[in-house]
């Protein structure tokens, strides 16, 4: 490869980066759709099932979706009726139990938000988000 070709290639690569850099600067204060969540706070369906009776399943989907179907024994806790539903969840909660929160699918954000509030506001430990959500449950029913 001649030096001029290499130079041209480098110029092209630099030009390709320009729009990306511009966008990163322009949208620097924009919040992403999914709040970042450490891998340690996610749980796979297989892991959660292995915890057995020691798991409290929390359904973060809207009431209508919960009424249609849900994980057997799950408690409804969504942000539409947070103040009404939280005491019902806390009645079932105990320190030795693990809480697994799910919403519709991998891309939904409700379970992340509910889990975040349980950890930050109620200061509960062992709160996890189910990878793949309800869709994953249906697949592996």
């Amino acid at each position, binding site marked *: 490869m001649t030096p001029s070709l290499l130079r041209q290639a480098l110029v092209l690569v630099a030009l390709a980066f320009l729009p990306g850099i511009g966008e990163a600067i322009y949208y620097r204060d924009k919040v992403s759709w999914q709040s970042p969540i450490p891998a340690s706070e996610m749980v796979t369906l297989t892991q959660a099932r292995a915890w057995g009776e020691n798991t409290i399943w929390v359904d973060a989907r809207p009431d209508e979706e919960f009424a249609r179907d849900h994980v057997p024994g799950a408690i409804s806790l969504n*942000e539409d009726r947070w103040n009404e539903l*939280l005491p019902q969840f806390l009645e079932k909660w105990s320190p*030795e139990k693990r809480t697994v929160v799910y919403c519709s699918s991998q891309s939904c954000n409700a379970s992340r938000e509910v889990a975040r509030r349980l950890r930050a506001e109620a200061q509960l430990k062992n709160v996890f988000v189910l990878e793949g959500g309800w869709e994953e449950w249906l697949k592996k029913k």
Partner: protein
Amino acid sequence: MKTGIFAFTLSIFVCFSARAELKWEQTQVELRPAVGDKEAVGHFKYENTGDKPVRFKSIRTSCGCTVAQTQKEEVPPGEKGEITATLKIGGRTGTQVKAVTVDTDDPAHAVTVLTLKAILPDMLEITPTFVYWTDHEAPKPKTVVVHPGKNFAVKELKVTSSNLEFSAKVERKNVAGDFKIDIEPKQTTRPAETTLTIQPDDSAKIFYVNARVMNAPAPQ
């Protein structure tokens, strides 16, 4: 050569002659609902500046809490309209960012993502919102700290317990306007629970703290 020039001219002509173009007045809307509002509604205005109608194929939202709808399914050339996105506030707090994905048959802008940002007023920040005592734990008070949000000054907190087996004592914690609530159960030998309602001054907005004495662990 002549054929090449003709093909090039024709392709340019085809590209620019029948153009559908939906122009958005804004694709991001920031809302600041007041305390007690039930919904936050964003309006995304559009205009078809092309000379072909544009049809909406689908409008999807990133959350079941947001509903979006358009005034018309098809926008004729030169016409204006808007998509309204309604966020149900419910028990949500803090900054909410929801996406509305609009699919159209306009090949140049087949997908547009609209952003609805709602900054919900946090009148009080309460930490923690849940306290508990294990079976036979010493029935000592546990403290909840109440911090008034930015732009909110709270003179007094009215705290009521739904269960008389728990008492709650409110004190001003510091000059910054924080309060502390000491919650104390009368006993920890049998299960009990309460919901404390917290009312800042005479506000219609009520906040909640839950307290519970746990059951004895089940025998193994």
